[in-house]
């Protein structure tokens, strides 16, 4: 986590500096980032929706996300930069999940699980990942001990949030993936190669 400090102007200590962005009032500059992306874990059970449309009782207890989504879209729609247009020609899903950064930048991911049906695990192989906060609280002990942790995946229950930083200092430029580690969630209902996945593009 010291990598952030080394980027601050020489001799400026740990105080936050004008011209730099920080995720939290961390007191040491360690949540400094260059680009930020909100990623909302979403999803829906199309059977539940069909029942609602057919004015039938909806089975809340058997809710099962047949469409695991990021920011309301399944892959490959997740990486479209333009809004998704629905059958009524309206912009139905405006938020892209395409993550872009230049090599060396620190990417802040603001993760929230708003699906609220079950636990989901997102993984990002190939880019070092440091979790800095859970449930909108900096991971610090009561006397300030640093509880950040390095990981390759983050698991989030319904309604929970986490903030993590992807550090691309030593990342080779190219396309990386953020996706549900439970591979059965990589589908758009019966269509494979979809669902809860997006690209992270690291430019040179």
């Amino acid at each position, binding site marked *: 986590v010291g990598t952030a400090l080394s980027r601050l102007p020489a001799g400026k200590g740990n105080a936050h500096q004008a011209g730099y962005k920080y995720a939290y009032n961390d007191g040491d500059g360690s949540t400094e980032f260059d680009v930020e992306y909100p990623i909302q874990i979403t999803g829906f059970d199309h059977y539940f929706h069909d029942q609602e449309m057919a004015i039938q009782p909806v089975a809340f207890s058997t809710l099962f996300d047949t469409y695991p989504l990021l920011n309301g879209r399944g892959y490959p729609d997740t990486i479209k930069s333009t809004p998704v247009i629905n059958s009524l020609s309206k912009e139905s899903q405006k938020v892209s999940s395409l993550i872009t950064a230049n090599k060396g930048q620190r990417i802040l991911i603001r993760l929230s699980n708003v699906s609220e049906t079950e636990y989901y695990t997102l993984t990002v192989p190939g880019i070092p990942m440091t979790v800095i906060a859970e449930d909108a609280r900096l991971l610090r*002990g009561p006397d300030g*001990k640093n509880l950040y942790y390095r990981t390759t995946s983050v698991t989030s229950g319904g309604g929970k949030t986490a903030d993590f930083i992807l550090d691309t200092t030593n990342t080779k430029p190219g396309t990386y993936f953020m996706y549900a580690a439970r591979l059965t969630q990589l589908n758009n209902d019966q269509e494979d190669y979809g669902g809860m996945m997006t690209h992270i593009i690291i430019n040179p």
Partner: protein
Amino acid sequence: MSANTLAKCERERTNMKSTMIKLWTGIVLGALGLAAPSAKAEWLNQNTNPPAGADGMGNHLVDGITGPIFTLTAKPGHISTAEGGSVYVWGFANGNGPMQYPGPTLIVNQGANVVLTLSNTLPFPVSIVFPGQTVTAVGGSAGVLTREAPQSGTVTYRFTASQPGTYLYNSGTRPDLQIEMGMVGALIVRPSGFVKANKTTWKGFGTTDSVFDHEYLFLLTEMDPDIHSQVEHLALAYTGGIFNPTIDTTRHFANYWFINGRTSPDTMMVAGSKALPAQPYDAFPIMHPKQNLFMRVVGGGRDPHPFHTHAMHARVLARNGRLLQSSSSATTSDLSYLVFSVNSHPGETVDAVFTWSGEGLGWDMYGHSGTDPLAYGEDPNDHGKRFPVVLPAEQDMDFGQWYGGSPFLGTSAALPPNLGGFDPTGGFIYMWHSHNEREIVNNNVFPGGMLTMLLIQPWAPGYAP
């Protein structure tokens, strides 16, 4: 807590309302009738032992049995779910008492030499394992995980409760089925020096940050009623010998969710209610502003649950009965952290402290003028700040049972006839629940399941500790 949080809570309560009125007027009023002597206790003073303090509310400790010599009996029975269901279960009874779900909460002090004899009235072997304890099993017959009590037999388990914290116990025999059927309970080890009658000794651990005013258990479980129906059906055809039903537990898909063995809104019914003879434990946290509420959260089933504490964050002090500390000589949980949803994973326990202040709300929650004295625990930054909303006229509002007629803590006001009634002291009420929200139904009837309410009761006017 932000105004947004409160507004969100308000919305949720509003959304729940029409069904809640139907369910709760029937169920809760029914409970009040059945448990008339305890009705006051249900709302104002859940546990009168130790006696209520000067605040008039008393302090809550987890219900259970204290041993440390225990006798549990494995028995069949039925439990009730709040939408009117009845589920066949196998559970543990305290001695010759009724079968109960969950099993009796075993409460001992650190260092106690626990001796638990399990007596079996079920037509198949049963056993108990105590994760986190070093157990010696005596008697009974050999089993896969531990020694078992055979049909009509007994087995004895001994261990020293060497470390404080929250633990669970459950069946060690065909656990895929027997735990699902109800053979699970909590074990609470209080730290050395804990004396129930002396509140100054109340702590979750030996640490200074585990001091509490109230202690609540949240044993989270779930059931797949299809499995229970199949087992009951097969049990009806039982003619003798070892009952070992052929049940495919790999297809388990929960449809009932419980806190301390009850589905909501039964979670808020008085403990020991005669309406729920097999489900004696309630889960209805009540506290005053700035008090510490010690949460013992137990993952007793097979699914994880994000247990959401609306209103404020909780500080996680320990997991699996072990403090989050950088060294064992630390006097606090210096590696503790704040969450607004406690991750409760199967087989795991979490000890956390929840404190409510309402600070940072942006308006004076007591409705004070700037010249009024501060209430105990009040955020001085918000003192005298105006309520930022003009309340609509009565005919433009809908009223939930929990609304006391006023948005201000400690103030009750007139309500239309037959409305309100659950909030006689002008408290604030927040929903605590699994945030995997498909789990807050009872067989598809919303609201229900793994859900309860936190009641913030105002201090008496002028109170200062």
